[in-house]
């Protein structure tokens, strides 16, 4: 079974994360005597060949690994406050990735699809807010760090904003 949360330099294995997430939800369901896994949403972020009009040759990802893994645990706990019986698994890759390679895979599992979609969308929004991962774009004419979000993990507004993007 794959770890629930990971930062890894190895290529991401979508099928393995799907299997792990299903197994974890199955165990949770037995333990709590609730309905088992019925819907899995896999979010796969892939390196896009073009960004804001410029051709991207590759992306290099860097992470503060222990805090990034802790951020995934935190995001799962935050999701659990609103969606009680879902399982969330997150693997983010680091190192240099070619166009088309997955940079992040999120598996959200629940008995029913509404909950799985909500947890999935919440997770990716929150990762982009607080997870200490940085990407460097290698373009045709040079390379630069992409500067995204500066969010206090304890601030309520960004948390509410992430939930606001989930499906009804």
């Amino acid at each position: 079974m794959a770890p629930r949360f990971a930062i890894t330099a190895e290529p991401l294995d979508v099928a393995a994360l799907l299997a792990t997430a299903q197994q974890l939800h199955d165990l949770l369901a037995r333990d709590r005597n609730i309905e088992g896994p019925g819907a899995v949403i896999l979010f796969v972020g892939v390196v896009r060949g073009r960004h804001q009009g410029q051709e991207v040759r590759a992306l290099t990802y860097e992470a503060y690994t222990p805090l990034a893994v802790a951020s995934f645990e935190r995001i799962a706990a935050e999701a659990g406050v609103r969606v009680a019986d879902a399982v969330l698994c997150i693997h983010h890759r680091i190192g240099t990735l070619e166009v088309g390679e997955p940079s992040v895979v999120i598996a959200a599992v629940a008995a029913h699809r509404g909950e799985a979609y909500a947890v999935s969308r919440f997770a990716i929004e929150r990762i982009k807010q607080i997870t200490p991962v940085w990407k460097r774009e290698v373009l045709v004419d040079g390379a630069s760090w992409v500067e995204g979000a500066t969010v206090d993990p304890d601030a309520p507004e960004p948390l509410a904003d992430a939930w606001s993007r989930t499906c009804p």
Partner: protein
Amino acid sequence: MPVTVLLFAGLREIVGAGELSRPIEAAATVDAVWRDLRDHWPALTPYGPSLTCAVNAQYAPMSSPVQDGDEVAFLPPVSGG
């Protein structure tokens, strides 16, 4: 009384190292560690308003106290996903 400072992405490139040891005074804060760095590498200055930080791999405000042996990480705006 040194602390370990971790720097990432653009910050790391300015300083030329991802990890360094810096002396601190008694009753120092994360903010004091940052000011010390900024004084040595003025090119860090523009990052001040957009920083977040962590002490011992836990999110922490800039006002957090730091102690001998702590690991203090400065995080520029994140861009994962």
